[in-house]
C-alpha cells in the first residue's frame, strides 16, 4: 500500500476512535450539569446521587476522549505535513485557539469538579461542571470551524510565492455558515446520543427492576430532552444537505447516487447504485421532485449528476451513498424511538419491549455519528481542502514502512483501550448507584 492510502486509513481509524468518546463527553456532561443544578436548587439528595452515578460514567469516557484527541493534533504534522504547511496559517490557528480558549477550561475545571466535592460550596461545585460542559462544546466549535475550512474554504488568499493559503479575513473564517450548520448538527447529535445513553442505561435497570425509583427519574428526565434533540438533528441535517448542494455538488450527487443532470429529480426509497456502470441498478418507490426539494427547496431545481464531473473529481460513490442512507435511516428511527419513550415516560410500568429496544439502541447513535463524519469526509474526496488541495498532495514525505508500523500499533493499542473502556463502562453502568445501594443496606 502507498503512503497516501496508509495515512488515510490511519487518520480514519484514529479519528473514528476519537469520535466514539467525544459525543458522550458533550452529551452527558450537559445532562450531568442539569442533574447537579437540580440538586443545588432543590437540595434533593437523589439528584446528587444521579450526578455521582452519571458523572462516573462520564469520567471513564472522558479520559480516552482527551488522549485520542492529542493523536489528531499530532497527526496533521506527522502524516499530513504538506497539508499543514499549506493551510497552517488558518487551520493551525483554529486548533491553537481551541486549546487556549476551550480545552484548558474543560480539563482544569473537570479536575476541580472531580476532586473538589468537599472543598467547594455546592454552587461553586455545580459551576465547575457547567464550565466543563461549556469548555467541551466550545472546543467542538473550533474543531468544526477548522473542518469547515476544509469543506468550504472561505476568508483566505493564495500566496503563490510561498505556495500556501493565508488568512484574508478572520471574520469570514469564523462566520463560515457551512461550518456553523455542521457544528449544530454534530453537537445536537452528540446531545441526542447523551440522551439515548441515559435512556438505555436506565432501561437496563428498569427491565431488571433494579433501583427502579432511581432510574425512573433519569428516564423521565432524559426522554423529552432526547426527543427534542432527535428532531433538531433531523432539522439541522436538512440544513447541512442544502449547504452541501450549494457548495459541494459532487458530494451531493454521490450522496443521492444521481448520475445524470436533471430537473425535478425524484427521491427513490430503494436505490442500488453501481459505480462501474455509472447508473443505478434498482430505483424503486419514487416520490416525484422530492430530491430537488430536499437539496434546493424547489421541485424545479436542477441537480447536477455525477457524470458531469470529471472522474478524478468524484468522491467514492458507493461509500458516500451508503453511509448517507444508513445515517438518515437511523436518524428517522431515533425520532420514532424517542417519541415512544417520551409518550411512555410517566407510566407506572414502561413497556418492556421499548426498554429492551432502548438498551440495544445504545450503540446506534454512535454508529450514526460515525456515519455522518464518513459522509462529510469521504464525500469531500478527492480533496483535502475542497477545490484547493487534493488529498494525495497533502501527505508527509514518509516511507510506507513507517506508516504501516504506526498504523498497526494504533490498531492494537486502540482495540485494547476500546475493549477495556467498554468493559469498565458496562461494569459501572450495571452496578447502579453505589450510594443508593448503601442507603438500602
Amino acid at each position, binding site marked *: 500500500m502507498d503512503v497516501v492510502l496508509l495515512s488515510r486509513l490511519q487518520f480514519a481509524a484514529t479519528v473514528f476512535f476519537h469520535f466514539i468518546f467525544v459525543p458522550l463527553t458533550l452529551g452527558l456532561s450537559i445532562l450531568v450539569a442539569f442533574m447537579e443544578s437540580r440538586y443545588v436548587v432543590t437540595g434533593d439528595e437523589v439528584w446528587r446521587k444521579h450526578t455521582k452515578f452519571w458523572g462516573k460514567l462520564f469520567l471513564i469516557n472522558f479520559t480516552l476522549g482527551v488522549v485520542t484527541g492529542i493523536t489528531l493534533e499530532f497527526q496533521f*504534522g506527522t502524516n499530513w505535513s504538506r497539508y499543514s504547511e499549506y493551510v*497552517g*496559517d488558518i487551520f493551525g490557528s483554529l486548533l491553537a485557539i481551541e486549546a487556549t*480558549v476551550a480545552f*484548558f477550561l474543560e480539563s482544569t475545571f473537570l*479536575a476541580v469538579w472531580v476532586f473538589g466535592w468537599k472543598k467547594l460550596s455546592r454552587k461553586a461545585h455545580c459551576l465547575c461542571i457547567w464550565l466543563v460542559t461549556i469548555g467541551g462544546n466550545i472546543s467542538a466549535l473550533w474543531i468544526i470551524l477548522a473542518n469547515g475550512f476544509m469543506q468550504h474554504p472561505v476568508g483566505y488568499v493564495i500566496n503563490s510565492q510561498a505556495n*500556501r493559503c*493565508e488568512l484574508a479575513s478572520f471574520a469570514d473564517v469564523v462566520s463560515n455558515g457551512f461550518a456553523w450548520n455542521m457544528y449544530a448538527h454534530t453537537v445536537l447529535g452528540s446531545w441526542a446520543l447523551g440522551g439515548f445513553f441515559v435512556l438505555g442505561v436506565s432501561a437496563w435497570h428498569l427491565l431488571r427492576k433494579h433501583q427502579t425509583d432511581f432510574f425512573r427519574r433519569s428516564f423521565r428526565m432524559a426522554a423529552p430532552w432526547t426527543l427534542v434533540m432527535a428532531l433538531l438533528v433531523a432539522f439541522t441535517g436538512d440544513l447541512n444537505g442544502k449547504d452541501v448542494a450549494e457548495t459541494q455538488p459532487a458530494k451531493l450527487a454521490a450522496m443521492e447516487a444521481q448520475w445524470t443532470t436533471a430537473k425535478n429529480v425524484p427521491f427513490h426509497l430503494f436505490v442500488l447504485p453501481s459505480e462501474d456502470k455509472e447508473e443505478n441498478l434498482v430505483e424503486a418507490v419514487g416520490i416525484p421532485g422530492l430530491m430537488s426539494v430536499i437539496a434546493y427547496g424547489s421541485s424545479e431545481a436542477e441537480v447536477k449528476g455525477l457524470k458531469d464531473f470529471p472522474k478524478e473529481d468524484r468522491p467514492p460513490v458507493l461509500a458516500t451513498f451508503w453511509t448517507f442512507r444508513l445515517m438518515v435511516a437511523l436518524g428517522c428511527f431515533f425520532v420514532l424511538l424517542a417519541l415512544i419513550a417520551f409518550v411512555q415516560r410517566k407510566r407506572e410500568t414502561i413497556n418492556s419491549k421499548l426498554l429492551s429496544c432502548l438498551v440495544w439502541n445504545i450503540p446506534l447513535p454512535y454508529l450514526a455519528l460515525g456515519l455522518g463524519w464518513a459522509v462529510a469526509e469521504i464525500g469531500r474526496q478527492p480533496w483535502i481542502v475542497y477545490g484547493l488541495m487534493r488529498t494525495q498532495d497533502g501527505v508527509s514525505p*514518509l516511507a510506507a514502512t513507517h506508516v504501516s508500523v504506526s498504523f498497526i500499533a494504533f490498531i492494537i493499542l486502540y482495540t485494547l483501550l476500546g475493549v477495556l473502556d467498554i468493559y469498565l463502562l458496562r461494569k459501572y453502568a450495571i452496578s447502579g448507584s453505589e450510594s443508593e445501594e448503601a442507603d438500602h443496606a
Partner: protein
Amino acid sequence: MLETIWFILWTLLWAVYFVLDGFDLGLGVLQPFLARNEYERRVVYAAEGPFWDGNEVWLIAAGGVTFAAFPKAYAVMFSALYAPLLMLLFGLILRAVSYEFREKVENSLWRGFWDFVHFVANLVPALLLGVAFANLFQGIPIDVKGVFHGSLIGLLNSYGLVGGIFFVVVFMLHGALWLIIKSDDRLQLKAIACANFLWPVVVLLLGLFLWMTKTHTHIFDNYMANPALFALPVLALGGLIATRLMLSAGRIWSAWACHGLFILAVTFFGVSGLYPGIILSSLDPAASITVMNGASSPLTLKIMLAVVVVMVPIVIAYQVWMYRLFKDPLEVPKTQEY
C-alpha cells in the same frame, strides 16, 4: 518583530509545559522506587491526580501554537521526528489511561500491571522530549524540501541521549520536590532523601550537557555575538542553587518554584541559541526553517497574539486558583492497604 515575539511565546509555552508536566512525568518515573505499598502508591497518584490533565493541555497549546505561528516548522518537526513523536504520544495515552483504569478494579494484579504501564509511560515521554529537543539544538538532517534523511537510531546520538537523560533526571528531581509537598511520614522522608540525592546528579548532568552543547552545537554562537544572553544560563544556575538552599531550609514550595525557574531558564537557554532558526538543518543551512521563512502571515500572527495575550493570563489565573485549592495533600485512606 512580530515573528520574534512569537518565537519568545513559542519558547515560553514549551517551557511552561516542561515546568508543569515535568513533575508528573518525574513522579511517574520515581514511583516504583519510592512507593513500596498500596498506600504510598496511592499517595503518589493523588499527588498528580488533580493536576496532570491541566498540565498536559500546555503540550496541546504548545503544539497548537507551533502549528499556528510557524506552520512550516510544525510540519517539518512533526514529520521528521515521526517515530519518536508517535512513541511520545503512545506514552501520553497510556499514562492518562493508567490513572483512570487502575482505580476502577480492585485486584492487585490489575493494579500492578497499570503501575508498570504508568512507569514506562512516564519514562518514555520524558526521555523522548529530551532527545527531541537536544536534536533540535544540534540540527536535524532535513533537505530544502523538508524531507528527513535520518533515522530513529540517528536521533539517539550521544548528544541526543545525554539530552534525554538530562530531562529525565531533572523531571525526577522536580517530581521528588513535589512529592515532599504532597506526602507525609515515611514517604516524605524518602522523597527528601531522593531530592538530596538527585540534586548533585542534576548539577553533574547540567555540566555535561553544557559542555557537550559547546562541542556538538552552535548554540553558543548567539551568546558570543550577544553576551547579554548569558543571563539565561546564569539564571538557570541561580535557580538550581536556590533549589538546594530552599530544600535545606525546609521551604519546599520555594524549592519547587526555584527548580521550575531552572527548567524555564534551561529551555530558554537552548532555544535562544537557535534564533533566528527554529529547525536547523544539519545538511544545508539553506534548508533551515527560521522565524522569517517559517512564520505565518502577519495577520494570523497578530490575531493569535491577541488570543494568547488575553487567554493565557486567564488560563494561568484559574490554574493558579486550582493549585491553591488543592495545595494540601489529598486524603488517602490508610485502610486500603493490601
